[in-house]
């Protein structure tokens, strides 16, 4: 075999702490290595051309590149060798940047380590063989999980791109958090006026099927061929007939439960339509508070319903669909501020969250857009905003910055002045985080034009005095303590991962970070991809984001989906398990262990049971290879011998008996 080795300097990234030329020299002494050199940037165009050239001149049949992590550039170099006429699997990478030059201090140790990693790669390459990928068709349908603004954007873009879209929303209506907002920064334009039309588009688009009050029950399959089970939760209303006239909502006698859409500022009837612009505009019954479902009498809604669409017998319904790609847009949840007992733990009614304040500001909200103290309905004069409630705070396990609180607080301060001209806002902040077009100017306006008083410091405690709330904080710039007698306190609560995100992640095989936000494939170069092919991320489920960023990511995810589904056929990774029928005894252990049901039992022509791998289903984990008592099933490109070759390269067998 004729192997060529290329040691990349990566500028000074590797060459800085690794003696690349000497590694190249050492490599030349390894078996089958006929050519070895060091290069400045292997991944650059000249770098790749040099590799191609060498393959041609030295007629190499295998290439090792020692550079960065294969998770970065393995695909790049595989294409390179392919362009030179080699099979893309006749290529190995040695990671001498992330695993050597960037973590080791001493140059000679690094150089030695690099040389050994190259040796491992060479030994493995010597046992590699060409692999040909299988081709398979994809289902031309997209699943969008979550109907917030990010999901809506992704769905509309995919639908406009000609793909069939299934949108699944857990709540009764789409619109997500944005639908609850009154105005949006930095333009202070009406949130529902911007979002409303898009929501209607979703409802009316011929390519989009919407399932509200629904959740993902199960996910099977693989890129291009996912099998999805959707649980459509019982709404006790036959949505096919419901016209959303709202008669039932008016008549419903039970108004026990706090209204989730209005953040508990008021109670909602048991049968309800969240808000006028809801999509779908259908009524649904909350079983927990429905007198009929709890006590078996009432049924007023059923009596008044003109189309008789109330159905107290309704049950959850399971729907199965096949899709080719999935966009996850499950958004975020607001931090539970009760973890700050010093802010009253709910003992003081006039301490509210920023989202509750949004509902209060909104004309469609419970107060009809009038700012009133929950305690006595009076109009507040001094409004205190406290930022970083559940952000940048280790003590509540939320060390990260939620990103958008600074901006929405500035917006709310401005709106407060608009609603109550003689009011005064105080904003306790740690730092103002306002990168973004027109953002910082916006926060300045809050101070300069609307007279918001920014105070740099956290708030230690809130306590009532008369009908006021005394907010005691610090002004670290003045270097002392400050007290503000407030009429209303608004907590700028931070963002945390959506409830159930982790559980959903398990179903999708998308791994969440320690705070429950989904991890993207690459922090810079693959922001919407995940490590599971065919599953993409959009919006705040990947990390706190404001509206523009979420919309942007929605479109980005859509672009990825359209790109994927535009291919007539997809190629399956040929690095899958293979059964050697001669060795297989048909014990079926592999069939039991395979997590994907990718192995089926067949009979050879003598009627003996044998295992057989379904290429397109196999994900190439290799669990079966370890399970097989006969060593009959081997994971291509990661066979026992290939891995053992790497082991032996590191720890040469000391004993006489050599297994190779």
């Amino acid at each position, binding site marked *: 075999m004729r192997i060529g080795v290329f040691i990349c300097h990566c500028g000074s990234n590797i060459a800085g702490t690794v003696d690349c030329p000497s590694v190249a020299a050492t490599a030349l002494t390894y078996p089958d290595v006929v050519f070895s050199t060091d290069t400045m940037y292997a991944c650059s165009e000249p770098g790749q051309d040099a590799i191609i050239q060498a393959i041609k001149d030295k007629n190499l049949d295998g290439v090792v590149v020692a550079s960065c992590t294969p998770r970065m550039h393995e695909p790049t170099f595989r294409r390179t060798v392919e362009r030179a006429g080699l099979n893309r699997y006749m290529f190995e990478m040695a990671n001498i940047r992330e695993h050597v030059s960037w973590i080791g201090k001493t140059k000679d140790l690094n150089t030695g380590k690099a040389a050994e990693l190259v040796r491992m790669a060479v030994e493995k390459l010597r046992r590699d063989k060409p692999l040909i990928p299988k081709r398979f068709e994809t289902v031309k349908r997209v699943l969008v999980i979550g109907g917030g603004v990010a999901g809506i954007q992704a769905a509309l873009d995919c639908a406009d791109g000609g793909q069939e879209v299934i949108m699944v929303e857990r709540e009764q209506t789409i619109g997500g958090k944005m639908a609850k907002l009154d105005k949006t920064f930095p333009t202070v334009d009406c949130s529902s006026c911007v979002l409303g039309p898009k929501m209607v588009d979703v409802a009316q688009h011929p390519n989009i099927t919407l399932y509200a009050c629904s959740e993902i029950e199960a996910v099977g399959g693989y890129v291009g061929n996912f099998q999805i089970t959707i649980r459509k939760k019982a709404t006790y209303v036959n949505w096919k007939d419901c016209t959303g006239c709202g008669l039932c909502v008016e008549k419903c006698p039970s108004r026990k439960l706090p209204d989730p859409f209005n953040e508990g500022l008021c109670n909602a009837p048991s049968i309800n339509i969240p808000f006028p612009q809801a999509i779908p505009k259908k009524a649904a019954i909350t079983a927990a508070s429905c007198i009929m479902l709890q006590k078996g009498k009432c049924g007023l809604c059923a009596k008044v319903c003109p189309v008789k669409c109330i159905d107290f017998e309704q049950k959850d319904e399971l729907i199965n669909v096949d899709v080719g790609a999935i966009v996850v847009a499950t958004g975020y949840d607001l931090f539970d501020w009760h973890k700050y*007992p010093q802010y009253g733990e709910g*003992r003081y009614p006039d301490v509210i969250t920023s989202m509750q304040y949004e509902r209060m500001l909104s004309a469609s909200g419970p107060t009809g857009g009038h700012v009133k103290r929950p305690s006595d309905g009076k109009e507040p004069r001094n409004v205190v905003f406290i930022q970083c409630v559940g952000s940048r705070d280790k003590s509540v396990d939320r060390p990260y910055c939620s990103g958008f609180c600074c901006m929405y607080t500035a917006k709310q301060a401005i709106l407060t002045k608009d609603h109550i001209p003689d009011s005064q806002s105080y904003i306790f902040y740690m730092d103002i985080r306002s990168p973004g077009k027109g953002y910082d100017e916006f926060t300045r306006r809050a101070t300069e034009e609307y007279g918001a008083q920014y105070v740099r410091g956290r708030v230690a405690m809130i306590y*009532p005095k008369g009908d006021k709330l005394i907010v005691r904080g610090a002004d670290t710039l003045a270097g002392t303590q400050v007290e503000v007698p407030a009429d209303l306190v608004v907590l700028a609560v931070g963002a945390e991962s959506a409830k159930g995100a982790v559980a959903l992640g398990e179903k999708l095989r998308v791994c969440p970070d320690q705070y429950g936000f989904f991890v993207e494939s690459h922090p810079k170069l693959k922001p919407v991809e995940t490590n599971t092919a065919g599953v993409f991320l959009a919006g705040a489920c990947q990390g706190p984001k404001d509206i523009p960023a979420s919309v942007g990511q929605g479109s980005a995810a859509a672009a990825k989906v359209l790109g994927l589904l535009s291919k007539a056929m997809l190629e399956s990774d040929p690095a899958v398990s293979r059964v050697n029928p001669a060795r297989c005894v048909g014990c079926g252990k592999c069939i039991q262990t395979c997590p994907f049901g990718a192995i089926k039992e067949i009979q050879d022509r003598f009627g003996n049971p044998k295992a057989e791998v379904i290429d397109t289903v196999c994900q190439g984990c290799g669990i079966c290879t370890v399970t097989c008592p006969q060593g009959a099933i081997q994971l291509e490109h990661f066979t026992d011998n290939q891995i053992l070759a790497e082991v032996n390269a590191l720890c040469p067998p000391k004993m006489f008996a050599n297994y190779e």
Partner: protein
Amino acid sequence: MLKIAYYPGCSGQGTSLEYDSSTRAVCRALDIELMDIPDWSCCGSTPAHTVNHVLSSALSARNLAQVEGMGMDKVMTPCPSCLTNLRTAAHKMEDQEFRAKSNALLDVPCKNTVNAQSVLQVLAENVDPELIKSKVVKPLTGIRIACYYGCIMNRPPELMRFDHHENPMAMDNLMTAIGAEVVPFPLKVECCGASYGIPRGDIVARLSGKLLDAGRDVGADAFVTACPLCQMNLDLRQGQINHALRENFRIPVFYYTQLLGYALGLDRAELGFEKLCVDPRLALGKIKQPAQAR
């Protein structure tokens, strides 16, 4: 019958005699036997830990060691300041190196096997409120009480491991159990000025004044405290505070044990109401006789 080692604390011998005696009376009434530490000494209080942590620890450890000598693993004290020192010592001594340093100062080394708790915690966690209710003979009906816990009874939570660090309820529950009306006092854990009464009276005047003011705001007839220092600052120094702030507070400040004892109908002599500076009758007078109450 619950047996617990008891550490009275120095002030129990002097400025808070009534706290000590009423505590003993109440415990007797509730079937808790106090085993006094035979030769207990001062825990060093605040001064010790502001000078050096090993010294402070040693002074507390001498007493913990005695409890170990009594073959007991739990000691209770009425005084939060003592409690903090005992618990801090125990906590720091979990570090072997520190424990060695601390023991090096002692004749009898401390094995650090004792858990120190406040009397309040024992009453709150080991006595059934229903039992207390059942024993009440003179319910405190008609009297409005502000429960003031002081700054270190529950803080820091990692160390004190008792009740809530921003809104403790132990005393509130006891007072409710004996029929008193508990007002929502907002500054339950705010500091009263602690031991600065003597060197910096102005500080105490301001801080304790703030507490009295807040109490008045929520219409309290009386304060109850669980801390000799707090009680002294609020009660004994109330005159000084009035003078300093040009105020005219006249709010009696009880130890919660005194009111418990009163409700349980214990011997007045042991409850030591006469030792209070602000006339207790201002509050006790408001108590409706059971007849009127109904």
